[in-house]
């Protein structure tokens, strides 16, 4: 997508546009060739008017070479009419709701009449009635002989809209089908794939015994102002609970909220049966909660600081005496962490940025293991990590749970959750859609639950 639209350059291979090799160095070049992309994230100029956004770079001019505002308003209104959208063209776009902004960015591309329009998850941020008008506009585009590449995670839409379906998985085209010749179930299977890498094979592990003591974490009716709706959740000692969900399902918001990094608007959080308020990460840490964020370099590590500083950071309050660092206590933690987690580093004094991704992630986990955390929240723990390091991290997480830690793993990689979790909760649109047992769930059963929001597979008794 990004290559086609000129944002990225292909490493190999070539793109042919009507028989000629495409040579687009930028989105502007691609647009010149008639290829337009509407990205998933709304990319608009919030401080400009609706008309300026729709006609961006193509504002009509009068004879004096000045912008002809009345013509601009007229043309923008016409372009929006295609999508059955009535907006004041002079309104500042940032004042409008997000789905209107998204429609304006679609109208902007439609106005350019591209020969090929690429839409990435357009329906994710649109209410149902606008999706219908969008489809009508796309039908019209096709009727004019123009082409559309449509990307979505709502399978039903493909059958409403598309003539041909291409399934990509991990950057490889795995299947191509005529829409008329396939159905949703077959599509799910194609998307999930069959070949299981051996690292994802679930070892035999006993289900954690039922206990009478209160769970480490109990969440009831948790809401945030914008994203989460009524989340119920429990994690017991020694249990690994997985949370599956697409990007935008509220997965990461849930993780950050439980760690006090984002405010809640309703609901209760209990640690060991006692209600707590998580106003800041400091609160969560003092209750024995640890958090491995999905953005390792942006939020997990201070890359410019040393390995040792990163590992000991959450423990500073504990290891220091009267505000002075205790080298012996710190060294003790660092030596144990490097040995037990097998962190490969020439020395604990080198900057964290010199280590490989897998070893960096071990540092982020070590921070919490040696802070004596009782609950560990892992958001995409193996993102951007090679296969061998992944395998090592999986065994590490299993061991930590066996030692009595409660673990909450959030991941978009289903194989990872099936490999690790005792229970898997499926999230979508800020809610928990359902729950499945980790040892009997399959990729199909979870994908079905995520995409349809219903329980097609067996449910936890």
């Amino acid at each position: 997508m990004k290559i086609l639209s000129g944002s990225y350059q292909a490493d190999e291979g070539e793109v042919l546009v009507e028989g000629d090799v495409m040579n687009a160095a930028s989105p502007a070049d691609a647009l010149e060739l008639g290829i337009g992309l509407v990205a998933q994230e709304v990319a608009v100029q919030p401080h400009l008017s609706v008309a300026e956004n729709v006609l961006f770079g193509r504002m009509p001019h009068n004879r004096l070479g000045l912008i002809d505002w009345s013509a601009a308003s007229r043309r923008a209104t016409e372009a929006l009419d295609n999508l059955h959208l009535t907006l004041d063209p002079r309104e500042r776009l940032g004042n409008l709701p997000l789905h209107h902004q998204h429609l304006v960015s679609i109208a902007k591309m439609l106005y350019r009449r591209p020969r090929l329009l690429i839409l990435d998850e357009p329906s994710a941020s649109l209410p149902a009635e606008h999706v219908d008008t969008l489809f009508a506009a796309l039908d019209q585009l096709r009727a004019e002989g123009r082409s559309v590449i449509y990307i979505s995670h709502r399978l039903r839409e493909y059958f409403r809209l598309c003539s041909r379906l291409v399934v990509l998985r991990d950057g490889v085209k795995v299947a191509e089908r005529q829409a008329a010749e396939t159905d949703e179930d077959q599509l799910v299977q194609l998307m999930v794939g069959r070949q299981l890498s051996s690292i994802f094979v679930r070892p035999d592990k006993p289900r954690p015994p039922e206990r009478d003591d209160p769970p480490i974490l109990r969440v009831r009716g948790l809401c945030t102002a914008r994203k989460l709706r009524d989340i119920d959740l429990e994690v017991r000692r020694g249990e690994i609970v997985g949370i599956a969900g697409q990007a935008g399902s509220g997965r990461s918001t849930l993780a950050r909220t439980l760690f006090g990094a984002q405010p809640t608007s309703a609901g209760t959080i209990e640690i060991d049966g006692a209600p707590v308020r998580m106003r800041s990460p400091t609160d969560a840490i003092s209750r024995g909660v640890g958090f491995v964020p999905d953005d390792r370099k942006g939020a997990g590590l201070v890359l410019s600081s040393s390995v040792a500083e990163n590992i000991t950071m959450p423990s500073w309050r504990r290891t220091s005496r009267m505000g002075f660092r205790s080298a012996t206590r710190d060294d003790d933690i660092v030596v144990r962490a490097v040995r037990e987690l097998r962190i490969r580093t020439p020395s604990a004094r080198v900057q964290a940025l010199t280590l490989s991704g897998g070893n960096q992630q071990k540092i982020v986990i070590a921070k919490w293991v040696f802070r004596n955390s009782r609950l560990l929240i892992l958001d995409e723990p193996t993102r951007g990590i090679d296969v061998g390091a992944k395998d090592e991290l999986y065994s590490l997480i299993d061991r930590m749970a066996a030692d009595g830690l409660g673990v909450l793993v959030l991941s978009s990689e289903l194989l990872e959750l099936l490999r690790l979790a005792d229970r898997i909760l499926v999230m979508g649109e800020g809610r928990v859609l359902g729950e499945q047992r980790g040892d009997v769930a399959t990729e199909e059963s979870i994908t079905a639950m995520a995409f349809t929001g219903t329980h097609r597979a067996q449910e936890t008794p």
Partner: protein
Amino acid sequence: MSRPPKAAPSAAGPVDAGADLPAPVHHAPRPNVGKRLLASRVGPFIGVGTVLLLLLVHEAISQPQFFDAANLTNVGRSLAVPLVLAGAMTLVVLTGGVDLSIGSSLALSGTLYAKLYHSGMPPGLALVLCLMFGAVVGFVINGILIGRLDMSFFVVTLGTLSLYRGIVLLWTHANTIDMYGDPVTSAIGNETILGGKLPVGFLIGVVVIVVLFIILRFTTFGRQVYAVGGNREAARLSGVRSEWVIAAVYAVTGLAAALAALMSIGRASSVDPNMGTSLELEAAAAALLGGIALSGGVGSIWGTVLAVVFLGVLSNALALAGASTSWQLIVTGAILVVAVYLDRIRTRAQRAG
């Protein structure tokens, strides 16, 4: 986690430490040796140290009077204020900020001291109040606005630069206040010990640097300064209260400005409403030249010290050569720009790995 881990049954075999580093990009231009040296941790020391040595050799040949005891005492006395200010500025720059109000804050605290002194308060008490005032104002205004309310350090300290100076001009009616005869500031800023060779102010500057070094190296607060500057979000998610760490470093510059004010008053025997003007640029130039990363998180206070000495010697050499103060401003400005350029090179080289 008490058991040592067993060898992981890995399908891919043992993992090499560099296994998942991105493949090296071959066409990327490698920085040449000089640039790589500048980019390393010792780069600033070697770079500034070399230029300082060359300067001293030049002085020895062309202006031998530089090494007269009287002139060296003079250099030491003139280093006192820059050491204190640049040392404190180092903490702010380490958090990724700059305190542009440090010169105006100096004038404000100095004016307060003069007013208290002339109201008949014992100078010792006035001194303590002046230092407390500097720290509290730095914490409450710059600190809270930048740390707690997350406002841009640039805009806030540019605002307080103007605000404090305006208050000083109003308060003094733009007149110089005579402080002749005040034993306390004179002792701090003007007197010497060891047979008239070692200025007390220089000694205080050295003590301040040592204290700041101990704070940065051996206290939790010091490590938090580096962590917050390196990655504020990661530090916050590791339980560092970054908003208070940032507020605290502006208290340190406020306190340092008040101390520097007392030294300046002692040297001049008066409070000039324009005192401290453009000292913020000298302090920032020293910290950046000394290798403190403009983006925060990286650097050592010894780099700052070396840069302060270099700037002080350069300024003295210019004065001996008969250059006017205008030239010193020009040199400071040029050095600030060069220091930022060197910072860019370091950052880029570090990203290239």
